[in-house]
C-alpha cells in the first residue's frame, strides 16, 4: 500500500504569495490611475462643457409625446379619435401660496373638493418642476372665466393637449375599449423611455391589445431654458413617431343593428366573415360610455357601473359563459355521422322522454307529447331532444369531447383581444382532475343537448358556426384588418388555417338540416325564413338558467324574468355560398326561435343587402 503525503515547500509558497501581493497592488494602482485619468478628463478638460450643460436649468430634455393612432371600422368610420382638450395646470414652484391659489381657483371655477384632493395626491408623484393638471377637459365657460382672471394666478396656465374620444360611446365600448391614466402598477412594468410624457394607456379592448402599435414612439427635445424655467430655444429635437392607425373588420352600422335588436335583453351578438374570419359584429349589451374613463371617471359613477345588476362593464361576447343548449346539436349530429353512430336515414321514435336502460329517471323532451319517428334532419329541424339523448348515449362522452373540441369548444379562439375565456367542454378526464369524481352516464345524455357542464362564449359559438359553414375549414376570428403606420401598411394577424378531417357529405347533410330549421315547414326558426331572397341556415337553442324538477311544469309567465331561460341562435347565410356566420345570445329571452333568431335575421339581412350594393 502506498500513501501520498502532501509535501509543502513553505519558502516557495511564501515567495510566490508575496510576489502576487505586490503584483496585485501594482494592478490596483494602475486601475486607480485609470479612474483618475478619466476624472481629470471629465472634471478639468470637459469641465466647461459639462458646466454649461449643468448650469441651473440650462438644458432640459423634454419628451415629445406621439399622437395615438386612430381606430376605424371596416368602412373607415371613426371609432376612436383624438380631440383637443383644455386642462388647467399648476407649477407649484412658481406659486407663492399654493393653498391660497387653490382656494381662489376653487371659488372661481366651482371645483369640487374631490378634485382638489385628487390633485394633491397626483402632485406627490410628479417631479419637482413638472406641471400637474388640476382640471381636465375644461368647458368653454371655465376657459372664459379663467382667461379673464389669469393675471391674478401666476404659475397657473391652460394647456392644450389631445384627449381620446369615442364617438360611438356604448355601442362598441367592449371591443374598442378605452384608455385611462397610467396607474402605479402599470408604471412599474412599462418601458420608462417610451412612456416619458405619456399620461394614458389602453386599458381594455383593442386599445389595450394593440397598445404597442397605437402608442407610437416618443421623441424628445433638448430645450435651453433660463433661470425661470422658461424655454428659450430648442437645441436639438427628435420628432415623435405617431402611433399606427388601425382598421378593424368590424362594421359599426351592423354592430348598431345588432345592438339595437337585442333591445330589452342583455346579451351578445357576434358575426364573423366566414371566408376570412374577420369579426363583423362584436356586440355586448348593455354597453357603457367609455369617454368618462379617459378623463378619470368619478368614484360614484364607477361604482354605479360596477354594481349594476346588468353588469355593463362585462364583455359578454368575449367572456360570457353560457350553456350552448340546442345550438350544440348540429355539431353532435355531425359527430354521430363521422363516428358512424348513425346514418342520415337512421330513425328514432320520440315519445317525449328518454330513459337509460334500467334507470327510472326520464330525460324529458321540450315537446311533452314527443316528435314521433324522426331522422337526423327532422331532429335538427324540430330540435328533438330524445334523438340527441340517444345519440349522445351511443357516442359516449369521450368521442363527443374529442370531436367537439376540434370546433374550438373549450378552447380560446385566439382572437386579438385580451381576456378571452376558454369555456368548457367536459370530459371524463376533466371531471376527475377538477372535481375528483367519476363520470356518470346521465351526464353524457344531457351533454348531447348542450346542457350540463358545457359552457361556451358567444364568440366560440360564432366561430364554430363559421367553421362548419366554411365546410370544415377552420376559421380564426380577428378584429384588426390593417395596421397603417406613417410609412407602411401591415395586414391583420397571420391566420393559421387548417381543415378538419370531416367528410364533406356529412357536413352538407348537417347544413341542409340547418337550412330546414329556417325554411322547413316545421323548422323552429321559420319566422325569419319568410320573404327573403336568399336562404339562411340556423339552429335555435334554449339554455336553462335553473333546473326544473322531474315532472314539474315550466311556465314562463309564472317565473321571474331573471330566472327565465337564455335564448340562443346560431346561423349562416346565404346557404349556397356562406358569407356570414352569426351567434346570438339573449339572456332570459326564453325561446331561441322567437327572440334570438330575429336578431340574427336582421344582422344577416343588412349585411347581405349592403353587400349586394357594393
Amino acid at each position: 500500500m502506498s500513501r501520498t503525503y502532501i509535501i509543502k515547500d513553505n519558502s516557495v509558497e511564501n515567495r510566490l504569495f508575496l510576489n502576487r501581493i505586490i503584483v496585485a497592488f501594482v494592478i490596483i494602482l494602475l486601475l486607480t490611475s485609470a479612474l483618475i485619468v478619466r476624472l481629470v478628463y471629465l472634471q478639468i478638460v470637459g469641465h466647461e462643457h459639462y458646466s454649461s450643460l449643468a448650469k441651473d436649468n440650462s438644458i432640459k430634455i423634454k419628451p415629445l409625446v406621439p399622437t395615438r393612432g386612430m381606430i376605424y371600422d371596416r368602412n373607415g368610420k371613426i371609432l376612436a379619435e383624438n380631440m383637443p382638450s383644455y386642462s388647467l395646470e399648476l407649477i407649484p414652484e412658481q406659486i407663492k401660496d399654493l393653498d391660497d391659489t387653490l382656494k381662489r381657483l376653487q371659488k372661481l371655477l366651482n371645483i369640487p373638493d374631490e378634485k382638489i384632493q385628487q390633485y394633491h395626491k397626483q402632485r406627490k408623484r410628479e417631479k419637482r418642476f413638472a406641471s400637474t393638471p388640476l382640471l381636465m377637459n375644461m368647458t368653454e365657460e371655465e376657459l372664459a372665466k379663467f382667461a379673464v382672471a389669469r393675471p391674478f394666478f401666476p404659475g397657473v396656465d391652460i394647456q392644450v393637449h389631445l384627449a381620446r374620444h369615442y364617438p360611438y360611446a356604448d355601442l362598441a365600448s367592449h371591443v374598442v375599449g378605452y384608455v385611462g391614466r397610467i396607474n402605479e402598477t402599470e408604471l412599474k412594468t412599462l418601458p420608462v423611455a417610451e412612456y416619458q410624457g405619456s399620461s394614458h394607456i389602453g386599458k381594455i379592448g383593442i386599445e389595450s391589445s394593440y397598445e404597442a402599435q397605437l402608442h407610437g414612439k416618443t421623441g424628445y427635445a433638448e430645450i435651453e431654458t433660463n433661470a425661470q424655467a422658461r424655454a428659450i430655444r430648442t437645441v436639438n429635437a427628435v420628432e415623435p413617431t405617431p402611433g399606427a392607425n388601425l382598421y378593424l373588420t368590424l362594421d359599426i352600422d351592423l354592430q348598431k343593428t345588432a345592438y339595437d335588436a337585442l333591445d330589452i335583453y342583455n346579451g351578445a351578438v357576434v358575426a364573423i366573415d366566414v371566408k376570412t374570419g374577420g369579426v363583423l359584429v362584436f356586440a355586448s349589451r348593455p354597453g357603457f360610455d367609455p369617454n368618462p374613463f379617459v378623463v378619470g371617471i368619478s368614484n360614484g359613477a364607477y361604482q354605479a357601473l360596477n354594481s349594476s345588476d346588468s353588469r355593463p362593464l362585462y364583455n359578454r361576447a368575449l367572456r360570457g359563459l353560457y350553456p350552448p343548449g340546442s345550438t350544440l346539436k348540429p355539431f353532435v349530429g355531425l359527430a354521430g355521422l363521422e363516428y358512424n353512430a348513425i346514418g342520415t336515414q337512421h330513425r328514432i321514435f320520440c315519445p317525449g322522454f328518454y330513459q337509460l336502460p334500467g334507470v327510472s329517471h326520464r330525460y324529458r323532451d321540450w315537446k311533452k307529447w314527443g316528435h314521433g319517428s324522426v331522422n337526423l334532419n327532422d331532429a335538427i329541424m324540430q330540435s328533438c331532444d330524445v334523438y340527441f339523448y340517444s345519440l349522445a348515449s351511443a357516442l359516449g362522452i369521450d368521442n363527443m369531447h374529442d370531436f367537439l373540441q376540434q370546433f374550438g369548444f373549450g378552447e380560446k379562439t385566439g382572437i386579438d383581444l385580451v381576456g378571452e375565456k376558454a369555456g368548457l367542454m367536459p370530459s371524463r378526464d376533466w371531471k376527475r382532475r377538477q372535481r375528483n369524481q367519476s363520470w356518470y352516464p346521465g351526464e353524457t345524455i344531457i351533454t348531447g343537448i348542450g346542457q350540463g357542464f358545457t359552457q361556451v362564449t358567444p364568440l366560440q359559438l360564432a366561430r364554430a358556426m363559421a367553421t362548419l359553414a366554411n365546410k370544415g375549414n377552420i376559421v380564426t376570428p380577428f378584429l384588426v384588418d390593417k395596421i397603417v403606420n406613417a410609412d407602411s401598411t401591415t395586414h391583420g394577424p397571420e391566420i393559421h388555417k387548417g381543415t378538419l378531417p370531416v367528410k364533406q357529405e356529412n357536413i352538407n347533410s348537417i347544413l341542409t338540416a340547418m337550412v330546414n330549421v329556417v325554411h322547413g315547414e316545421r323548422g323552429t326558426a321559420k319566422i325569419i325564413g319568410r320573404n327573403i331572397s336568399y336562404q339562411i341556415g340556423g339552429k335555435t337553442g334554449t339554455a336553462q338558467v335553473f333546473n326544473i324538477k322531474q315532472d314539474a311544469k315550466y311556465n314562463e309567465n309564472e317565473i321571474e324574468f331573471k330566472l327565465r331561460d337564455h335564448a340562443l341562435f346560431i346561423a349562416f347565410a346565404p346557404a349556397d355560398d356562406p358569407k356570414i356566420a352569426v351567434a346570438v345570445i339573449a339572456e332570459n329571452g326564453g325561446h331561441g326561435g322567437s327572440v334570438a333568431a330575429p336578431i340574427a335575421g336582421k344582422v344577416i339581412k343588412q349585411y347581405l343587402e349592403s353587400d349586394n350594393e357594393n
Partner: protein
Amino acid sequence: MRTETRREQFEPPSALGNLLRKLHIDVPLFITLSLAAMVSFVILYSAGSQNMGVLVRQAARVGLAFGLMTLLAHVNPYQFKRYSAVLFSLGILLLIAVLIMGQIGKGAQRWLDLGFFRFQPSEMIKITTPMMIAWYLSEHSLPPKWKQLCIAAVLIVVPTLLIAKQPDLGTALLVASSGAGVLFFAGLSWLFILAIIAILASLAPIVWHLMHDYQRDRVLTFLNPEADPMGRGYHIIQSKIAIGSGGIYGKGWLGSTQSELDFLPESSTDFIFAVFAEEFGLFGCVGLLILYLLIIGRCLYIASQAQDTYSRLLAGSLSFTFFVYVFVNIGMVIGILPVVGVPLPLISYGGTSIVTLLAGFGILMSIHTHRKLLPN
C-alpha cells in the same frame, strides 16, 4: 525568542493598547473604515435632500455592521477554516431555495423572508465562496494543479450562475472575482491567466445571448449612451454632467445642483459618487480614492503577514474584491464600465452590502490579531 511577556517588557502596555488588543481590533483599518463611514454620512446628507431619516437608518446599519465586524474579529481564523465547507454549502442551498421561491412567485427574488428579517443569501456567498476555495486550495500544495483548478472553477461557477439567474449581475461579478482572487493569490500561472482571459473573451457572444433584455440594454447604453437619452442612457449622461460640472474644487458641500434638481437618478445609492464628485471636485475624488487605497493597502499588508495558507488566500481575496467593488462602481458612474448594480462600498445608502463588507474586514482583523508570535 520573543514571547508575549517579553514583548510587554519592551512596550509598556497602555490602557488603550490593552483594550484594543482585547477587542482584537486592527487600529489602522478601524480608523480608515470609520473615516469612510463619516464620508458616507456627509455625502448622504446632501444626496438624500438633507433628510435626517436617511442618516438615522444608515447609522443603524453601519452600527450593526461594525458590531458584526468586531464579533468576527474575535473568532479564531482556524474556526473560519474549519467551517468553510459547511458555510459554503449552506449558502448554495439558500441560493437554490431563493431561486425556487422566485420561480413560484414569478419574478426576480433575492430575499429569503425569515419572518423577523429578510436575508439575502447572495450576500453571504460573497464571503463563503473565497473561504471555500481558500480552504480547498490550502489542503494542497501551491501553486494549484490541473485537478484542483477544475474543482475550484466549479466552486466559482456554481454560485455565480445561481446569482446571475436571480438576476443580479453585479453581485455575480463580485462573487466570481472573489473566487478568481483566491486562485490568483494561490499562484495561478500567468500563462493560465492569459488563457482564461482569451477564453472569456471568446465566450462573450454566448453570454450576450444568455443575458436578459435589460442587461443587454445596459451594455448597449454603455457603448453609446447618447443614442437613448430619454431611457437607459439618461443615468450615464446625467452622471457625467454632474461629475464634469464639479471641476477641480467642486461646488462645495450641499452645493450639487444636479441631484437637487432631480436630474441625477439613484443619487443616494449606486450613483452617489457622482454627487460626491460634483460637490468635492477632483480633489475630493482623489482624496476618496486615496482613502480606499489606504484601506486596501492595509488589507494586503495583513494578507502578507498572515501565517498560514488559508488565511493568506482569504485575506488576499477579500482585499482584492473590495477593490473590484470600488472600481466597478466608480467605473460605471464615470462612464468607463457598463452600468451594473454595484453600490459604492462603505458610502452608498442602504443595502445589506455594508454588513457583508464589514464582516469581511472582521475576518481580516481576526486573521491579523490572532497571529502567533513566531521566532524570527
